[in-house]
């Protein structure tokens, strides 16, 4: 028995210094290294250091879910694009809401030449997913400013909260749109688009009207449906763009300038 106890002490020692996941205690454990924490905050710091140019150019991709091989190919394709400032992930980073999956995608995405930011998707909320997302990336609703632009990321996964009227948080969205003293052009990003069945029907009109009422809104971006879409869905002047999934091997390159934007679809 003495050998057993010595062996246990040895293996316990290894477990605390070993690379990720030799010992696992539960699929829903949230065990993170310092380099895997607060990724939203860390990447915003990197973005705001990028020199501001006349045009802003970023990649909008999403729904990486269980498509690790495809996401690796996406990174290769994205790294070959010219003059990209950063990458935005439309959510459904993971498929099962398991921390290990979030780590895998981060491991793939950190090979990008550009910083990346995420918005939470419905699959990222499953089980311990939203807890893991908060600790690994940051708040579910957040904003940042870059040059003449303000980006608002909002959790629009109403169905995950039983369509209880809490999500998306429209009062928060209104306050963030209102808090814009420099009249920066605003881009709102969510995972589930308001015209999708998983978006709270009782909040759809108010959400769309809130976006339409803001004079600084440039356009709004979504994922979730695994298909490219674009259009003025509510005949109110607001342009909606939707990117496809990694499984569908596509993403958007969005170029913005003062009076307009160009949205290109890329297949890789």
């Amino acid at each position, binding site marked *: *028995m003495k050998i*057993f106890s010595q*062996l*246990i002490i040895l*293996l*316990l020692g290894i*477990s605390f210094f070993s690379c990720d*996941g*030799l*010992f*696992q*205690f*539960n*699929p*829903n*454990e*949230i*065990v*993170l290294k310092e380099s895997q924490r607060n990724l939203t905050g860390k990447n915003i710091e990197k973005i705001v250091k990028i020199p501001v140019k006349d045009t802003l150019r970023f990649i909008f991709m999403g729904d990486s879910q*269980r*498509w*690790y*091989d495809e*996401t*690796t190919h996406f990174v290769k394709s994205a790294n070959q694009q010219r003059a990209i400032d950063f990458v935005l992930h439309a959510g459904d980073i993971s*498929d*099962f*809401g*398991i*921390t*290990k*999956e979030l780590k*895998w995608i981060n491991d*793939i995405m950190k090979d990008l030449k550009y910083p990346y930011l995420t918005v939470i998707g419905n699959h990222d909320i*499953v*089980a*311990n997913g939203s*807890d*893991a997302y908060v*600790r690994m990336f940051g708040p579910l609703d957040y904003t940042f400013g870059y040059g003449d632009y303000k980006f608002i990321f909002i959790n629009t996964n109403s*169905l995950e909260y*039983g*369509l209880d009227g809490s999500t998306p948080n429209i009062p928060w969205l209104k306050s963030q749109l209102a808090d814009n003293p420099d009249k920066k052009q605003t881009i709102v990003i969510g995972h589930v688009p308001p015209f999708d*069945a998983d978006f709270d029907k009782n909040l759809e009109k108010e959400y769309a009207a809130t976006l339409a009422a803001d004079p600084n809104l440039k356009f709004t971006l979504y994922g979730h449906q695994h298909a490219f879409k674009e259009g003025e869905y509510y005949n109110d002047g607001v342009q909606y763009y939707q990117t496809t999934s990694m499984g569908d091997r596509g993403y958007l390159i969005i170029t913005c300038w003062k009076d307009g934007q160009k949205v290109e679809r890329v297949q890789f």
Partner: protein
Amino acid sequence: MKKILLLLLLSVNFAVLAQDDQPGLKSRKWYIPDHLKLHFAGNIGFLSGGPGYVSRNKTLETDLLFGFLPKKFGGDALITISAKTTYSPWKIPLKNGYYIRPFSIGAYLSYTFGPQFDTKWPSYYPAGYYWWATSFRPGAFVGGKAGRNMVIKNQVRQFEFYYELGSYDLLMISYVQNREYLKLSDIGNLSFGVKMAF
């Protein structure tokens, strides 16, 4: 006819009693466990432990394990119960009652408690929206063990140390579909434990 039947029943009864009295054969009630296990890691808790049963030829073990994961080691405090079965077909006897069972293969089904985990998804989801349950997790493993039979107070007792390399359904599916990015080591994990049979 009745007498013959009675005699037959009695003889069967005696045969059973006689067998129970044979030395080396256990006479304990069927529901008394054959052994206890203490297990480290393996996605069923930081530590888990519980009673188990072994087949008559000692190759098949079935265990019920109660596991606990403290927040300190898991980022969340989680309680898990698991039913687990292990098949170890071969035994290599060594000196002094030591032996090795070089290969084991097995499977488990775990249940993790918590309001964030679902067995049946709430009715507001369309049917089949998510196809897996988050509370139940099936897994499989291969491993091996080493043990020793000892006579303590005229009773044979058995101590075993075993290790397991395992994975579970969701990671296995991810691996099969992403053979380029994922390696077996990405989805596998190591666990080990001790068993005491009495």
